[in-house]
């Protein structure tokens, strides 16, 4: 059991700047929970409060059902991987990994055993005597991971650990982290501003904006049923198209509930219509193709419609030339509806 519960947590800096107000959050035991949101949304602060590196201004933090507000970071049975790795520059790889074990008074024999095992897992066996400065970014990342893993913690905290790696290595490390989570079955709390990272790794996504949880659910639900306009536009690439109901009304052949104020749809759900076809129960609009981006398996277009620019994408279909005219149709069931407060309208 290593469930983390934040009850009515508030964090204020310098008595004025409130970053997080009355936050309630439950991170399930064994989950891979990703805290995601734009810069300054408070996600790193939450992680640091779980680690015990930032004191809570108000509220309670529970790990395993025990209040840990006053428990020191070293006594919380957690390990953390930092964005810039935070490896001890004057110690060797082995020294870095061993430091926490020595402080926890693990006997030498046990230490050696654990280090050998971990280093084989993460592929560091031949670098044990090197200093961090002599390693590549990916290798340093592995040392940071090994340093966390070797402690067998109940909770792993990760603060944007992949942001300093190049795209290819990031993809590889992403799969390795998913594997690692499966193997260790510990609770992972992962902070990122990259929604792709969040969606691909998480079992639970907690989407934050200005210190407030916008939605906490599985990645699938967050994508399929965004709880509000912010979530709808933050998750998904390219971002969801969103228009005011009154602007699109002339092109709408579907019946919508009264309180719907905004209509959103994913770029992949705006489908080109063949000549002569007249889709019903949908939003159908014609326009001129402005730009075309070939992404490999898909092509992303920007279309100038009478009510604004629509982004849409096609998969392995024939190319549309810039400046050509296209009619797009969005089925009623592909629409996301929001009220005047920006909240999802459930049907």
């Amino acid at each position, binding site marked *: 059991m290593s469930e983390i519960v934040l009850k009515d947590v508030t964090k204020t800096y310098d008595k004025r700047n409130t970053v997080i107000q009355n936050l309630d959050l439950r991170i399930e035991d064994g989950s891979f929970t990703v805290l995601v949101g734009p810069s300054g949304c408070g996600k790193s602060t939450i992680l640091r409060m779980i680690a015990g590196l930032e004191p809570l201004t108000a509220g309670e933090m529970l790990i395993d059902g025990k209040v840990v507000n006053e428990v020191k970071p*070293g006594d919380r049975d957690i390990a953390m991987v930092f*964005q810039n790795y935070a490896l001890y*520059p004057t110690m060797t790889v082995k020294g870095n990994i061993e*430091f926490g074990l020595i402080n926890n008074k693990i006997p030498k024999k046990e230490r050696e055993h654990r280090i050998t095992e971990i280093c084989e897992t993460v592929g560091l066996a031949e670098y044990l005597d090197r200093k961090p400065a002599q390693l590549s970014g990916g290798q340093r990342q592995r040392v940071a991971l090994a340093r966390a893993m070797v402690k067998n913690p109940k909770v792993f905290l990760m603060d944007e650990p992949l942001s300093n790696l190049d795209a290819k290595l990031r993809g590889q490390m992403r799969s390795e982290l998913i594997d690692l989570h499966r193997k260790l079955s510990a609770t992972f709390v992962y902070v990122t501003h990259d929604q792709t990272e969040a969606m691909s790794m998480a079992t639970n996504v907690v989407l934050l904006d200005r210190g407030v949880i916008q939605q906490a659910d599985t990645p699938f639900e967050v994508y399929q049923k965004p709880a509000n306009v912010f979530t709808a536009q933050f998750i998904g690439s390219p971002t969801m198209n969103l228009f005011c109901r009154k602007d699109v009304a002339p092109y709408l052949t579907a019946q919508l509930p009264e309180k719907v104020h905004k209509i959103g749809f994913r770029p992949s759900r705006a489908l080109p219509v063949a000549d002569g076809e007249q889709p019903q129960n949908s939003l159908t609009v014609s326009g001129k193709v402005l730009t075309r981006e070939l992404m490999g398996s898909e092509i992303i277009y920007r279309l100038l419609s009478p009510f604004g620019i629509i982004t849409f994408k096609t998969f392995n279909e024939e190319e549309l030339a810039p400046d050509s005219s296209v009619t797009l149709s969005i089925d009623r069931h592909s629409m996301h509806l929001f009220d005047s407060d920006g909240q999802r309208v459930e049907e």
Partner: protein
Amino acid sequence: MKIFSNIGKTICNLILLLVFFFPFYWMLSTAFKTLGETMTFPPALFPANPQWENFLHVIEVIPFGHYLINSCITTIAVVVLQMFTTIPAAYAFSQYDFKGKPLLFGLTLITMMIPAQLVFMPLFILFSQFNMINTYASLILPFAGSAFGIFLLRQRFNQVPKELLEAARLDKASELKIIWKIFLPLSRPVLVTLALLTFIGKWNDYFWPLVLTTNDTVRTLPMGIVTMTNAESGTPYHLLMAGNVLISIPIIVIYLFAHKHIIKAFTYMGDK
């Protein structure tokens, strides 16, 4: 144009070299002269016959060994004590938030601006009231702390990434261990420089032993060398300079070992 600027630079460097090197050379040259040669006009740049026995003479004329031991005891004690006091103080100023920190740090820095000549009288009275004149303590205790050292180390400690400290705390390291295992190894050049500057300052110190001693019991080498001026035959410049050469040797040797660290401390403070 480049040639002119290069020539200008070289000339400037030469002048600087002369300004700093000449007194040193003059000490060395005089140390090998005879008393007569030190008096001639115009002064001779080189001794006609290098007098190696001047050095032997210095050691015989004054209780050189006694002064040397006193110098070693006071200097090493001051260096060690300063490390004991400045490291924790600098760490606290750099890493902890506590009430009155800016004020305390400001007060610490202000002590650097008070000239020694202002405080020697109160200090002398204080030590004499405690019957501590002519003891090692009187030469060591006034230097047990160093505002400059606290300032210099704090600057270095401030540059240590916050994440390292946090990682260590998550690794359950005690504060002492964090200082010892993480901050000090990262601050080695600054520590070496600080130790060396303290060493030189204390080793060469003439003023404080002069004020706080009234007899030879704990007097150090710089004062010991000066006692030779009391000789009836006038000031034996050649012996004084030979004594000074002997005093300079440890500093030069230590500098040769540590100069890489010193240059590092003052030119490049970043560690990746």
